[in-house]
Structure formats: C-alpha cells, structure tokens
C-alpha cells in the first residue's frame, strides 16, 4: 500500500501538470461564448455545444490552414526521408572519401537552430521568388528534417549486418540494387521512425511559416490561429481552443499509433 502511494501520488501530480493544457482545450472547446463570458465554474461544462467547431470551420479559413499543414508536413516528410535515406546509405555503406566529414557536417547542421537562420533565409526566399508560396516550406523544412533523419538513419544502418549485402554483391548486384532491394526493406523500421519524427516536427513548425507566408490561404494552423483568430485584445477562446484541439489531433494520433517508435527514437538520440 505504502509503495503504491509513493508511486501513484507523484504520478498523479505529474499527470495533472502535463495534461493540464489538453484538458483545458477540451473543457473550453465545448462551451458556448455565452457560457465562457459568465465566469462560471471553469472545471465544468454546463451546456455542451459543438458550435465553436462549426463556427471555426464555416467562418474562418481554418480548414484551409489544416489542409496546408497536412500537405506541407506530408510532402516535407516524404522528401526528407528519401533524401536522408540515400545520404545515410552513402555515408555508412559506401564510405566514399570524405564521408566522415559529411557525417560531422550533418551533425553540426542538426544543431543549428532556425532562430539564427530565419532573417538571412528571408532574404534568400525573396530573391528566389519563393515568398508566400506554400510549397516553398517543403525544401525549407527539409533543412532541419534532413540532418535529423540522416543522423537517425546513420545510427540505424550501422547496425545492419554487412553479410547480407556481401552475399548480394557476390551474386553481382550493383550498389544501387543493394540500396533498394536489400537494405531498404530491412531499414523500414528506421524509415518509419524518421517519418513520424519528421511529420511531428513539421506539424510543430512555426517560425518559418510565420515569416515566409503572408496571405491567409497559405498559412499553417499555428500561424493562422495566432495571426488571424487573435484580433487585438478580443480573444475568441472557445474558437481558439476548438482550433487547438483539432490541430493537436493529427500529431497525437500519429504518436499513439507509433508510440514505441517515438520512445525508442528519443531514447536512441541520447544513446547513439
């Protein structure tokens, strides 16, 4: 009994702290504006309603932002995982001259935060005429996804035994054939890991989308909500929390589907 208390009481405290904002989205999103302005017990929903969701989807560009975020996240993930896989394969399996230098450079690229890049990158984006073009976010997100995924896949490919490809090589398979037919199927768990992390990181991105997109039709969920649903001092809390709830959902769904990959990937990132 004592042991149980010593585990579950602190665990419950952590639970309350860590779940609080999500609980708050749920508790607010199903209230009417009228109920929210009355200052009633905030821990209870007196008259549950889905009006905030219907208003959000019919009166704002939220659905568009959601579609944009989904498109960008998927496209950036596909591009980055592909590019990272061939890069990691080249570094680990082909060992061309200079592959060590490339590997170190990629690790360094991984720890360059977007916050020191966004200003010069803005001038580059303008020169390339990529400003306010939604698809431009795909290569831009690749700048932080590719280093991350390559690093993760290098760790993964290192552990695949060489015997497999040696056998294929004896049979006359080319390096390119080994890359696709032999290593690729074995690397799938690593690629899934890279893909879900890329999706989460893209879905999460804010600064680049905020600086490089300007018209409403090109905004992502996070940018649209903070720049268009917050007007001056009037906060539409019901609508904001409904939007936050829907916006959190894809990241959370992917996460719950692949929980073990996340845990292994995060733990691996400190252990590799």
């Amino acid at each position: 009994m004592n042991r149980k208390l010593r585990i579950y009481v602190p665990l419950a405290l952590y639970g309350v702290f860590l779940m609080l904002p999500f609980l708050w989205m749920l508790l607010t999103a199903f209230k009417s504006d009228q109920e929210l302005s009355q200052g009633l017990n905030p821990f209870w929903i007196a008259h549950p309603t889905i009006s905030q969701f219907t208003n959000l989807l019919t009166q704002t560009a939220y659905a568009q932002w959601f579609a944009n975020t989904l498109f960008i996240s998927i496209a950036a993930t596909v591009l980055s995982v592909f590019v990272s896989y061939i890069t990691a394969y080249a570094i680990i399996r082909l060992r061309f001259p200079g592959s060590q230098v490339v590997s170190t450079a990629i690790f360094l690229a991984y720890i360059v935060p977007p916050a020191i890049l966004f200003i010069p990158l803005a001038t580059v984006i303008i020169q390339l005429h990529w400003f306010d073009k939604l698809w431009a976010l795909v290569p831009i997100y690749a700048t932080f996804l590719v280093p991350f995924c390559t690093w993760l896949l290098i760790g993964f490919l290192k552990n695949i035994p060489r015997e497999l490809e040696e056998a294929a090589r004896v049979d006359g398979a080319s390096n390119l054939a080994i890359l696709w037919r032999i290593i690729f199927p074995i690397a799938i768990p690593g690629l899934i890991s890279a893909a879900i992390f890329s999706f989460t990181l893209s879905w999460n991105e804010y600064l680049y989308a905020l600086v490089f997109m300007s018209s409403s039709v090109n905004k992502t969920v996070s940018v649209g909500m903070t720049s268009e649903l917050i007007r001056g001092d009037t906060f539409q809390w019901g609508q904001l929390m409904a939007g936050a709830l829907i916006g959190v959902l894809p990241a959370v769904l992917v996460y719950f589907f692949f929980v073990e990959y996340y845990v292994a990937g995060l733990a691996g990132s400190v252990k590799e």
Partner: protein
Amino acid sequence: MIRRPALAARLDSPRVLGYLLIVPAAIILLGLLAYPLLLGIWLSLTSATIGNPGQFIGLQNYATIFADPIFRGAAWYSVFYTICAEAGKLVLGLALALLLNQRFRGYRVSRALMLLPWVAPTVLSALAWLWLLDPQFSAISWLLLRLHLIHSNIDFLGHPWSARMSLIVVNIWRGLPYFAIGYLAGLQSIPKDLYEAAAIDGADGWQAFRRITWPLLMPITTILVAFSSIFTLTDFQLIWTITHGGPTDATQVFTTLAYQRAISGGQLGEGAAIAVSPIVIMIVLAFFVVRSVREK
C-alpha cells in the same frame, strides 16, 4: 553497346555513387542552411533593411545593440530563462524517470501520456496556457480563490516577474518529457547488480543514487542539457505566443527581439546582429554535445 555497362559500372563505384547520393542533401543544406548562416553573419555587418541591401558598416550594429538596454535585458532574460528552465527540466525529468523506472501497473500508459507535451504543436499548447493564465478568467486563479489562498485574480502575464516565471514553467512543461525519456533510457541501461552490491555493502537509497545512479547518468545529462539549452536559448514559439516579449519587453529574448527588429521593423542588419549574438554561447554548448556524442 559495350559502353553502357561500363558507364553503369563506373557510376556504381562507391566513390561516384557515394557523391551522387549526397547531392540532394548537399543542395538543400548548402543552399538553405550553410549559405544563410554565413549570409546572416554578413548581414549583421551591414545596414541592410527590407528592400535595401545596405552597405558594410563593420561592427556598428553590434555597438548599437550592446548599448541598447532592451537588448541587454533580452540577453539577460534569454540566459536566465535557459538556466532556470534547464534546471527545472533536469530535476523534474529525472524524478519522473526514477518514478517510471519502478515497474508498476499502468507503466506503458503513463509513459505514453507523459510524452504528449513534447508531441503536441507548441504554439497550440501555448495558446491553452495563455488561456489558463488569463487575467480575468484564469482557471488557476479561480481555483486558488475558491481555496482562499488568494484574494483577487493573479495577473500572471501582466507583471514582469510573474510573466518571466510563467514562461519558464511552460518551457519546463514542454521539455520535461524529453529529459524523462532520455533519463529513463539511461536508468534502464544501468546494470542491476551494481545496486545489489551496494545494498550488500549497506548503502541506503540516497547513497546508491549519489554513488551509482548520478555518476552513471552524467554523460546523458551532458547531452540532454547541452542539446536542450541550444533550443531553449533560441526559443521563439512559446514566448512569442504567450507574451510577445511583454509586458514592456520584460520577457524579450534574442529571438523575439530579432524578429521584431528585422521582420516587423525591417531593420535586417540590426536584427541579424541580435540573432547571431547568442552564437558564442551555442558554440560552447555544441562543443559539449559533439564531445559527448563522440565519447560514446
């Protein structure tokens, strides 16, 4: 007819294929990462504004910002924010990992739920925090009022110090799961017989923690803290969503100030100097990351 296989064979040699395969990554990272990084340093030495490339002015932007009390305040709060948040994440993350490391019913569910703050988009959870810290309708104030712990609503974000501390709490909230999962992996790799030997020698729980657990977790601590510090020092989303650097610049950090000066104000050169200035601290941190990753 004979040339194609020869060409194919040459393309397939590790040297040629190796270089070909890294071309896409090289284009992306050289063009959109390395070049902007250098361009940023160059911009910080010019008088560039939006729409005007400006000219080389040496270190004048740096002289201007170092003389600017708002920048000095931002530099100070960036460091303060990072130190407090890292300390909080370390202590609470390690405590949570120690808790989760004891096998119990509901272990997997707890571990899964605990990572949610890290998984959910920061801006969206920051909006929920903003609402939780609302001066008028804060649920935290409401609860404390009902418990008779306070007499009137707390204006969390309206006063410099309460705003600074609130942001640190939210940053801890978001980063704690990363520390917990890292430490959990570290704890699970410590051989059990070390603790058994310590128990035979009569060590109590605290001694075992100080003499075995903590020293063996040291390498992971270095990586977690150095890595997380780089991104906490340059945090933008959380602070921008919750306070925009206010009230009256009290929670301004390098990144929010750089954004205001460069993007909102159009002063690209000055903004670039502000954005570049934490680089010295980051190189020190990066050194620790690279060194501890190498050692493994």
